[in-house]
């Protein structure tokens, strides 16, 4: 509860900081709409030649695109800017300021910056999801919806933990931004169901860069093809990765020596 309040405060700070540059909102909206239009146009081209792609119907893939935007938007809204600032502050020693505050430093570092205009991606993702759900209509029951919510939360935890682990490696490595860029370029592959990729790439997109859990698995729930084993696996993986991120963070803090060192 306290942390939600904290997140809200940072959100307000983000709003206040950005209200001076309102044109940015329209530029961001324009860019987000372009990206969405590109994704849908790409689907349209592919589906003029085939009725299903690896067993997925156009509406199911549309739902997947919605999840892709929603998840990507949530990452760019708060996780990415905050953790980039964390990396920077490990380098120049300003992490000291976070450590002396009377809240958990990991949580503080994970929510300390909010790029509010990225809400456009989140909003567009939800809009696409709603459209896709309306078109899927009768095929989505309450059970599917619950499975979707559970898979989405697990996916969010996995992506967050993964980013946290990468960012925490800044305590040992100097140029972590490069690794983050690898993640971003591989995340793009999640625009399509990972089940279509050959085995080695599917493995990489599931466990090395966990975009399969972030996007494909929740979309599977809406497409009615999520088994409870996969969902349970996602939650086990989420719990393991989250604990690993926490342990790694503690190890990193022990190594951190502060600005004056």
């Amino acid at each position, binding site marked *: 509860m306290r942390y939600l309040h904290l997140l809200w405060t940072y959100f307000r700070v983000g709003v206040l900081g950005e209200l001076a540059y309102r044109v940015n909102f329209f530029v961001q909206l324009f860019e987000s709409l372009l990206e969405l239009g590109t994704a849908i146009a790409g689907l349209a081209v592919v589906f003029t030649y085939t009725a*299903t792609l690896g067993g997925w119907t156009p509406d199911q893939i549309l739902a997947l695109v919605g999840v892709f935007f929603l998840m990507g938007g949530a990452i760019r809204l708060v996780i990415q800017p905050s953790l980039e600032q964390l990396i920077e502050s490990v380098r120049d020693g300003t992490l000291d300021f976070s450590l002396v505050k009377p809240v958990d430093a990991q949580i503080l570092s994970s929510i300390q910056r909010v790029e509010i205009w990225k809400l456009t991606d989140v909003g567009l993702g939800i809009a696409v999801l709603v459209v896709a759900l309306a078109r899927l209509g009768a095929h989505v029951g309450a059970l599917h919806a619950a499975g979707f919510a559970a898979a989405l939360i697990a996916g969010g935890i996995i992506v967050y933990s993964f980013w946290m682990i990468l960012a925490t490696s800044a305590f040992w490595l100097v140029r972590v931004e490069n690794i983050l860029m690898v993640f971003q370029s591989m995340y*793009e592959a999640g625009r399509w169901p990972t089940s279509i990729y050959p085995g080695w790439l599917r493995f990489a997109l599931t466990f090395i860069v966990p975009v399969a859990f972030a996007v494909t698995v929740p979309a599977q729930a809406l497409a009615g093809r999520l088994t409870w084993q996969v969902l349970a696996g996602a939650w086990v993986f989420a719990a393991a990765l989250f604990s690993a991120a926490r342990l790694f963070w503690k190890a990193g803090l022990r190594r951190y020596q502060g600005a004056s060192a």
Partner: protein
Amino acid sequence: MSGLPGLYAQQFKTSLAMMLQYRASLVIWLISHVLDPLVYLVVWTTASRSSGGSVGGYGPAEFAAYFIVLMLVNHVTYTWVMFEYEYRVRRGSLSFALLRPVHPIHSDLADNISSKIITTPLILAAAVILALIFHPVFAVQAWAAVAFVPALLLAFAVRFLLEWTLALAAFWTTRVSAINQVYFIAALFLSGQMAPLSLLPAPLRLAASVLPFRWTTSFPVEILLGRVGWSETLTGLGVQAGWIVLCFFLLRLVWRAGVRVYSAVGA
């Protein structure tokens, strides 16, 4: 060595040193350049399997050939100047380039060519690995292989001049990222990056040929894979030459106007 050859030689040494310094950037570069064609290759292969083995004259083996050749052609023709100009203008680093006695385009060209010479072995290795995985089928005719070379070089020239000119938009606005995005999306569809142009709807196909996009990337791929006849090949080489002349004059015009409005921030 002095003059332009000296400049190019020096730029090559600098680029080589930079690349060996930042090896991690090389890996990122490689992943992003292999992943895009790989994703579309998989998507189209899956689509062709779902609809009876082939779509629009392309089966899995033909798609593999198309996207592997596309990846190599893209490697030769791509530029990154559109990402850099905003930074140069905003931070004023262009001022130093303007003080030099040669046009700044030369150092960009030298940088582009030397970076590519260094990264070519990597992309060739990636192509070999993709070929082992996806089993492409090539049936290259001798004349097509010969015509491929000038088409590839002209494609590089068109793309370099075009993107260098577009990059100059940074002189007038600091919001080039939106302009860049529009261009990259157009290029994604119209230069054959996401699908062979023959699979696109007719209006897009027409736009690809009327605008410079087809001539920057797709055309050499089509030649090598035997998708265009020799008379169309000759016409296409002529169109490429025409775009080069047009872009050259456009570049001079925009450059002169741009330098006049340029006032380095912080200068």
